[in-house]
């Protein structure tokens, strides 16, 4: 088979779809009402959190609940530096701060396995929350901070930029030797180490890359919220949501977490506005049902349905 026609066919249709979607997203503020732009920015935020979570936890199988910590570090960076430096630099610093924190935490903890790693990373979120709270009350004498206001279109475009860079990064990590190394760590860490992979370095660097994007998302989202305090910034919800969204979407393909996060965060918005008193109940039921009946997420369902389709065709001929 001619390899070039094979690849061009394989990439043409998805490439076109992605291009159309990107153009639609990039021109969104021109034709959509302001509310849609804000909603889209927060959906993109969840997608960024979820995809960056999947970069590390997807292939390695380490369940990290530290997302809220990295997100919160970004938020506090924006709160402290927001008025003093240009926006993009603040966002970059927010990402770098999370990156450094992740390097430190990663180097300390990545020898913890399974549930211990999950608990430790969750502890990190709570530690930062109460440490910052204590610091603020004792030394700055306030509980919260005001963040410099940025107009909604700017927030949207910065978030879109982060999203695009993240998708490209995630794609290349999956495709590279680095991604293969991660995959083999997830399947059997000891065997991976024996084949010459520097297991610790690969894990720590991937963990830090994923933290970088969470930090940038936090830094830009803080300008949208205008007021923050440790309870808002280090909310454990931001640790659990990416995990749930990734599982809901399915981690087998790159588009899985994207679709999962988009549907889930849109659903959250609808439920919050339509059923404020039953929002948590409905949300919880959807979560439990998704975990029970969709172990491989939406992607799994789609693949199953496709396979079933193919199977029938074969049976007929």
């Amino acid at each position, binding site marked *: 088979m001619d390899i070039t026609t094979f690849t061009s066919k394989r990439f043409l249709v998805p490439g076109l779809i992605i291009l159309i979607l990107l153009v639609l997203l990039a021109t969104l503020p021109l034709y959509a009402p302001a509310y849609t732009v804000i909603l889209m920015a927060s959906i993109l935020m969840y997608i960024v959190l979820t995809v960056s979570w999947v970069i590390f936890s997807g292939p390695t*199988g380490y*369940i990290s609940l530290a997302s809220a910590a990295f997100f919160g570090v970004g938020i506090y960076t924006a709160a402290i530096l927001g008025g003093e430096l240009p926006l993009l630099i603040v966002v970059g610093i927010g990402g770098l701060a999370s990156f450094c924190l992740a390097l430190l935490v990663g180097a*300390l*903890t990545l020898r*913890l396995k*399974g*549930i*211990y790693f*999950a*608990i*430790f990373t*969750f*502890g*990190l979120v*709570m*530690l930062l929350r*109460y*440490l910052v*709270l*204590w610091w603020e*009350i*004792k030394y700055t004498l306030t509980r919260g901070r005001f963040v410099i206001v940025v107009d909604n279109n700017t927030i949207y475009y910065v978030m879109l930029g982060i999203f695009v860079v993240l998708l490209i990064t995630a794609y290349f990590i999956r495709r590279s030797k680095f991604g293969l190394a991660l995959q083999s760590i997830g399947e059997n860490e000891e065997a991976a180490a024996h084949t010459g992979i520097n297991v610790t370095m690969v894990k720590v660097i991937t963990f830090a890359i994923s933290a970088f994007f969470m930090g940038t998302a936090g830094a830009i989202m803080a300008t949208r919220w205008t007021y923050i305090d440790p309870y808002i910034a280090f909310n*454990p919800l931001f640790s*659990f949501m990416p*995990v*749930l969204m990734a*599982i809901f979407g399915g981690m087998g393909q790159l588009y899985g977490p994207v679709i999962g996060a988009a549907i889930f965060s849109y659903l959250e918005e609808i439920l919050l506005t339509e059923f404020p*008193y*039953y*929002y*948590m*109940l409905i*949300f*919880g*039921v*959807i*979560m*439990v049902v998704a*975990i*029970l009946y969709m*172990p491989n997420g939406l992607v799994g369902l789609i693949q199953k349905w496709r396979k079933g389709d193919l199977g029938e065709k074969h049976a007929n001929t």
Partner: protein
Amino acid sequence: MMVTILDVVIAGLLLGGIYALIAMGLSLQYGVARVLNISHGEFIMVGAFLTWMLYTVFGINPLLCLVIVGPVVFIIGFILHKTLFTRLRISSTSSGAFESRSLLATFGLLFIIQNIALIAWGAEIRGYAYLNISVNLGGALFGANRLVTLGFAIAIGLAFYIFLARTRMGKAIRAAAQDPATAGLMGVNINQVLALCFGFGASMAGIAGLLLSMCYPINAAMGLEYTIIAIIVVVLGGLGSIPGSFIGGFILGLVGSIVTYFEPGLALVSYYVIFMILLLVRPTGILGK
């Protein structure tokens, strides 16, 4: 000086008693049923609100409520395990997959239970006065309700330990904790034992909620804080070790009380610092193997 030390120590033990009871429940659920129950605190909240309702509406003595709250929460936990977690366990490919899926499922449960409580009991902070008299212990004053709480926590902890160590059912539970597959081959009805353990764990949380409601104000969002404390204590004592959780609870209570004495704002921070250092140095906990 002696009085302050006594003050701090007793306050720590009083706090530790509740922590121990909460953590034992979680330890049972994780150690045997392998469910790291993020909604553990919600069962505490349900226990607390049931007691509050029974006391303020029907005038039933909170301590007598034990015979109602304990079984009611037990049944909720038992049914949940029979329906939800048994299904998850059977459909999961590995025990690791089950652990992470059940952890996420309990996060969904947290939302469900909390929302039902909000609908049933509202979002207000509730409380009632019961046994609200001071007792003098070597110069330091303590509420009688808190001493009763400590007594009950210790009694329930010991009773459960004896149940595990001396009865046939206890033996089955310990066997299931060590190796569920082999225990099943030896004739232990695994699904039944795991559901019972989850129910017992929930029931302990409910009783802890009952005791908490006697001493502190309660509200529908109180659960997560206690879940986190329970997780810390369980790791401190060693995942799955019941005596470990019991001792760990008192240690954490003492630490909290000592730190509160010097710097109140850092009490929770100190919990996490101890917790994270312990995870790094000795992840199996104080009594873990």
